[in-house]
């Protein structure tokens, strides 16, 4: 389960203050604390591990370079994710071919087992338990492909909510959009994902 935003903010302000005075150890602790989650969010949006590693690096370089300007108007947590998601979305826009290529090569990769699993999943007889779903690798592989077929803004909002576990207000802060936009974009993203999965099943 993703950690809540509140539970990770406990010592951030102290570490940020120390970092702002040039404390290397504090900055290293912040990086170590967030690197896994930042990497994971970037990976799920970009869909490529090499790009994700590079963008995570770029994120923290930018954090180090800009920490002095961080005024604490928002939490450090949302600030660092804003940098990461902005870099990732810009990167995805610049290299739109990457997404197209990955979709082309992975299209119709659902084999018999995967298709059967997907059919069961889409029957909607009950609400599936995420822990159970996580053990069905073929289904997760299809879900990854489906997620990459959403446009980047929809993918970003879905990753921040359903993987990172952010609340709507934090998502609005990270993406610099209205709360209502978060609501509608997330709803459309889920609906779209459902359509993509249904198309993959056929």
């Amino acid at each position: 389960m993703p950690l809540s935003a509140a539970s990770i903010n406990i010592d951030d302000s102290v570490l940020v203050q120390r970092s702002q005075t040039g404390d290397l150890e504090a900055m290293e602790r912040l990086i170590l604390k967030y690197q896994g989650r930042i990497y994971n969010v970037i990976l799920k949006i970009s869909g490529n591990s090499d790009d994700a590693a590079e963008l995570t690096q770029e994120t923290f370089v930018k954090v180090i370079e800009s920490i002095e300007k961080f005024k604490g108007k928002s939490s450090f947590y949302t600030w660092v994710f804003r940098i990461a998601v902005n870099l990732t979305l810009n990167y995805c826009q610049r290299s739109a071919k990457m997404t197209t290529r990955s979709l082309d090569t992975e299209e119709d990769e659902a084999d018999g087992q995967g298709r059967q699993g997907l059919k069961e999943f889409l029957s909607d007889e009950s609400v599936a338990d995420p822990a159970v779903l996580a053990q069905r690798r073929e289904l997760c592989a299809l879900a990854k492909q489906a997620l990459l077929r959403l446009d980047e803004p929809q993918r970003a909002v879905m990753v921040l909510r359903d993987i990172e576990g952010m609340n709507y207000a934090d998502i609005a802060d990270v993406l610099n959009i209205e709360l209502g936009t978060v609501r509608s974009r997330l709803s459309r993203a889920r609906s779209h994902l459902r359509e993509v999965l249904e198309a993959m099943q056929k």
Partner: protein
Amino acid sequence: MKANPQIDELLSSFIDGELPLRQQTEVQRLVARDAEVARRLRQLQNCKNLVNALPAEPAPVDMLEQVKQSLERRTLLGEHSMSVRSGAGARHLKIRRFVAAAAMIALMGGLGAVVYQIVVPVSPGGPGRPVADSIHPVRVIPDLAEVAPTPSVVAGQGFSGRLELRTTALAQADAFIKAVIEDNGLAGFAESQVLPDRRVYRIECGREGLDRVIADLGPIWKNFDSARLVVYTDRFADAVVVEPVTVRQVVQIVGQDNSESSVHVARRAAVMNSFAQAMPGRDIRSVLQDDSTTTIATPEIPRPRLASNDPAIKAIPAPPQDGVQASMTIVLLNTQ
């Protein structure tokens, strides 16, 4: 059920617990009496659960190291961070190219100035003529600057490096360094040269002896405006530059068992310093002072210990017995 964007939005927010209590109750009633709405709710919930079930993948283990290296590259190339604003790509590229070109020009200029300072010929009898040192029994050679550095002296087995220190109090620092060399019994292992704008000392001795000399410079380290260490490897092009370097870093680098370890520690120090320089609030002096026991700046360089012949005042330790393993050229430059 055909998807209805308004209903979907309501159901999606309900799933996330982002609805006010009154709307939550309305959705619950709607789901209870309409099977299609209940089915749609399950569909959306399952989509959320499926994405939530995607396995988290760990970040590369060397991420922190990569960040440091990235910062180091940026510092060396004078790169600025990438702009996140859309449509700024072309402008950003131009700026990067311009900055890179400017950095190269500045680097070449700086390098040229340093080379000029080192190799500029001194006219006999002119103002730049080296002055023989008669105060201390440190050996004086005709023009040490012309023969230093000598990267090949101990490369492969020992340590070979060049330490450049800048100060506004050249005479006091010079006296202090000579006293330190003498007090460590290394006068016979050191050569010095006096120029109007600099003092050059070449010490060839055991690593332990050199380490003691460097460690003894600790008290005046904070008075240097800058400190730069060049560690030579077998190939000159591979020399490692640590700047600003602290006295502790120099001691650690010199104190290694072999040349390879010294270079490794020097590279690590260079990366750490680069990392530190990219941090906000960085202050070269504060980095230089990290070994001092006090944070209060002392404007005066301590007086050198007396070079008296009185054995009660001056006890010279025995010269090193471990053979020549380290070669260090210390260049003390006058900051105008």
